[in-house]
């Protein structure tokens, strides 16, 4: 089922959580709502679920073209998974999953046997069938998350909404579980929206990323689109490490290293640390003189913190470990920087 939202506004007192937000999620896609905390992404998700309502007269929510703005949450057929799972503590895993079926009106309620069968099938689907009798407090974070997912799926939702689904897990489990979620989504083909503040997570598993900032949608696109062609300085900065250089600093020698269509002379230039090439200073040629201040060699890439000689601005540079060995760099060495790929925006942007 496709999900659309048009012109959604939401204020909490004087605070604007959403300011005229549009969203369009095609059938069967896995979409990430990505943004820093306070950007309005969770509020948007809750409005789609029917747990919050847009300000009167502001906007509509459509499921499969049908207006559900005034339909209560229980009748929207959404599966909602909370950041902290919100499992019913006093019920076993099995009863948690069966809950959505047990609360149905008698005329729509399946028999106990078919409830049991369905609950077990769902627990099998999330690979937890052996834990049906346990209580939530006896499960690990990742297991709880999957129980919450099975519980949400028990009511056969048309849409799956996940609020920071991996936010409360430790780094390793988080990586495993998000790959699992991607495979799981490919298997069940349910339109899914998940909220996250982790760009790596969003870029890795989503079909489409909706980047939000300050109650607005900044950009919508595939992970590659938003990463390669960020629509705004905010998106550029949010999706990875970035250096912001003042263009005047790039006068003289550096200018020659840039393609002519790149920065306006008085604008700002955005460059990712791995798009900077380092050459020894005495080798000559074009480039920006800089002094190495720190070398972090732990990890797959070496990170250098260098200071431009001319402006004293600090720049972060990422090079491979083998490059670092070849250059034989030490702290306080003089080097040259060449920017392989840069980005600039027309509008003014202050950090």
């Amino acid at each position: 089922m496709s999900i659309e939202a048009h012109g959604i506004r939401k204020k909490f007192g004087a605070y604007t959580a959403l300011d005229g937000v549009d969203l369009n999620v095609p059938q069967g896609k896995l979409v990430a709502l990505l943004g820093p905390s306070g950007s309005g992404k969770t509020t948007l998700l809750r409005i789609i679920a029917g747990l919050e309502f847009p300000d009167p007269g502001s906007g509509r929510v459509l499921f499969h073209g049908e207006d559900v703005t005034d339909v209560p949450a229980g009748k929207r057929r959404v599966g909602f998974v909370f950041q902290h799972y919100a499992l019913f503590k006093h019920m076993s895993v099995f009863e948690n999953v069966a809950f959505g079926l047990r609360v149905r009106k008698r005329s729509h309620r399946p028999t106990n046997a078919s409830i049991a069968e369905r609950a077990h099938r769902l627990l099998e689907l999330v690979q937890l069938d052996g834990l049906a009798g346990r209580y939530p407090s006896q499960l690990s974070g990742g297991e709880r998350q999957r129980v919450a997912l099975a519980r949400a799926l028990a009511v056969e939702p048309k849409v799956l909404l996940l609020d920071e689904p991996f936010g409360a897990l430790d780094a390793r489990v988080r990586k495993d579980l998000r790959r699992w979620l991607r495979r799981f989504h490919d298997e069940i083909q349910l339109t899914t929206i998940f909220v996250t503040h982790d760009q790596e997570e969003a870029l890795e598993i989503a079909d489409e990323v909706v980047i939000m900032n300050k109650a607005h949608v900044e950009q919508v696109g595939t992970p590659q689109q938003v990463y390669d062609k960020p629509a705004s300085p905010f998106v550029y900065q949010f999706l990875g490490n970035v250096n912001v250089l003042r263009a005047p600093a790039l006068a003289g020698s550096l200018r020659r290293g840039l393609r002519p269509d790149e920065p306006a002379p008085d604008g700002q230039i955005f460059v990712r640390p791995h798009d900077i090439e380092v050459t020894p200073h005495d080798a000559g040629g074009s480039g920006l003189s800089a002094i190495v201040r720190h070398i972090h060699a732990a990890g797959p890439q070496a990170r250098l913190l260098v200071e431009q000689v001319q402006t004293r601005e600090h720049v972060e540079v990422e090079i491979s470990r083998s490059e670092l060995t070849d250059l034989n760099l030490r702290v306080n060495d003089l080097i040259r920087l060449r920017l392989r790929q840069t980005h600039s925006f027309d509008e003014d942007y202050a950090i």
Partner: protein
Amino acid sequence: MAVPTTAPFANRHVRPATHRANRDPAWARWALTAVALVFLAFFLVLPLLAVFAQAFAKGGAYFLAAIREPEALASIRLTLFTVAVAVPSNVVFGVAAAWAIAKFRFPGKSLLTTLIDLPFAVSPVISGLIYVLVFGAQGWFGPWLIEHNIRIIFAVPGIILATTFVTFPFVARELIPLMQAQGTDEEYSAVTLGASGWQTFWRVTLPNIRWGLLYGIILCNARAMGEFGAVSVVSGHIRGETNTMPLHVEILYNEYNIAGAFAVASLLALLALATLVLKSLVEWRQTGTA
């Protein structure tokens, strides 16, 4: 010449003489424990023993007679009846108020929270007087009530009203922090799974607060049975009609029927002990399941 105290050596030398909090000498620990125990014995155990000693001062037969006396029985019945109305009302009000405060945003919420504490802040005598001022013969609704032949003050309804007012905070106070800590996610989950408000309350909210609720009910019950001040103002002390157990104890005492007074008082004391046992049981369950 003394070694300067800042020298490392001096410090090392001095250290054994300074006490850390967890290294008090034995005598200090024993002394503190003894002070606490003596205080407890004098102010809690001794009076309790005195109550039972006085109750049985004239023998078991007299004790039974004092309790079986029609006026004593009437006071016991009235107390039980009052509790049977006041406690369930406060459970309903308390759960509703706690639910509203903990789970919803609305204007005037902090005012409501303050109002819930009002009965704790106001002297019970004042609480009783409020009802006399409102419902008494000279009060706001007095003439109207007399016209319609409804008696509230100096009658059972007044006693129930005063008791309910005084014991109102117990359930709500117990539940508000508990429900606030639990948040609303479980309720929202239930709602997205298609549960109605009623189902959400019975299947999700109530099981989550049951031990806190029971604890609140026990405290509320104990206070409702023992309430003296507010009830004394509105009761009118009509023997066999509007005397609750605490009021009956006072009357017997004022008539120099010490053994009789203490016999009835011992029933209240027993109730207090039973409450304490129940309370510890609930606390033990609460920490066990948390």
